[in-house]
């Protein structure tokens, strides 16, 4: 059987009528096009972003730590569930902090998109009682580097390697708490020296509101 590589051909054609809402496939987007999130076992790429007070954070400064990345958009209803309704995010962060885990929220929303902007994020961080850094990634470069799809979308990094990637929990809606909090489980398994299981789940939420 001959084996064509249809997806190689595909890029040469522009999207036709059926896909009329596809605006993202622009031919002029040289940004790294990560389709799938960074895989478990992959080296977590370094980045540098500023928090809401203008303080710069580099992932590499926490090379010997466990780091949790939380993709964030204060106005996404899924994020609101975890921050305002069930408090699962700050509860898990508080649990993590006790173990010395570094927790960073990253907002990859582009200018003018929902939940974007320094003032809005300052206001939300206060309202949500987030006493951990909220990093702004307006260009979306870090989000695309990690293949972050949703808010929230969680990555747990240990010694520079991704050890968990996916959802915060097992309840993909905007209303109710989950039964299993995957990030908490992963951190517990990590500290007990156990294999992380599940190490990958399907993230759920709003799309990350990338600029392009």
């Amino acid at each position, binding site marked *: 059987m001959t084996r064509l590589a249809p*997806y190689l051909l595909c890029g040469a054609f522009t999207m*036709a009528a059926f896909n009329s809402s596809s605006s*993202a496939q622009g031919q002029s987007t040289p940004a790294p096009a990560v389709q799938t999130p960074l895989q478990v076992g992959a080296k977590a790429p370094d980045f540098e972003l500023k928090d809401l007070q203008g303080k710069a954070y580099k992932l590499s400064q926490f090379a010997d730590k466990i780091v949790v990345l939380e993709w964030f958009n204060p106005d996404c209803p899924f994020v609101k569930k975890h921050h305002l309704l069930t408090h699962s995010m700050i509860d898990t962060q508080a649990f993590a902090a006790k173990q010395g885990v570094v927790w960073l929220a990253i907002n990859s929303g582009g200018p003018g998109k929902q939940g974007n902007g320094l003032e809005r994020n300052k206001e939300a961080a206060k309202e949500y009682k987030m006493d951990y850094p909220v990093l702004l990634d307006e260009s979306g470069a870090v989000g695309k580097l990690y293949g972050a799809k949703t808010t929230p979308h969680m990555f747990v990094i240990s010694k520079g390697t991704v050890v968990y990637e996916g959802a915060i929990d097992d309840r993909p809606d905007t209303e109710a708490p989950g039964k299993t909090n995957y990030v908490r489980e992963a951190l517990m398994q990590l500290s007990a020296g156990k294999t992380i299981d599940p190490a990958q789940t399907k993230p759920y939420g709003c799309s990350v509101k990338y600029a392009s």
Partner: protein
Amino acid sequence: MLIVMTLGGCGGSDYGPGHAKVSLFSEKRTVTRGSNVLLGVRFDLEPGWHVYWDGQNDTGYPPHVTFELPKGFQAGEILWPVPKRLVSPGNILDHVYEGHVTLLVRITVPTETNPGRIQIKGDASWLACHEVCVPGKQAIEVSLNVAGDALTAQLNKEIEDARALLPLPWDEAARVQHIDASWQDSTLTIKRPGASRMFFFPDTASVPVTDLLHAGDVQGDEITLRPQAMTGQISGILGIETVPDTIYCSFKQTLP
């Protein structure tokens, strides 16, 4: 829950805070005991907004419908029409409905029930998105007459139209389409000579396929799917564009 609207143009719409209007209607006004009837749950979406298909998507969640049925009545699975692909900035891939969509549900009428008028009530909840996402909720209701005897009922045309948007059963499609599916080196190639474009939308039972962004929509008469794991199945909706039209059928292949 407080939803902060950050976009203009949201206020004053006919569609309400959930950016959709939902209605429930029946294939027949009168049903007989021991028969069944299709109900349609129609979502009319505010222009630009979408709701989600029940298959693999990067974001969102599909509408959820529950019914309160009279004693003995039973509701089947929701039948989902063919969605369309939506690619958003950051290569985020979803399968969605825009404009309007009718989900179908088959209701079985018990043999032991009194003739007369009955009410079927339900609740629809959904997530509508357009730049931002907003959850919505609405009560729905339809009344039916239960007749004692058989009768020839007039069918609701709108239900017929909605049925036409469901994917065809695989057997039916394969019979007329000459579709050939074969495995080689952990890849599944589906060929339909003469097709100009092919689509694949994986359902939630399917093993995810690699690079669905490109692999799920290809030019030509052949689509190649690489499963991300080698146990389980590849399943969902296969779309075949030919001149003059595009057909969509249910598709399922067990992994070798």
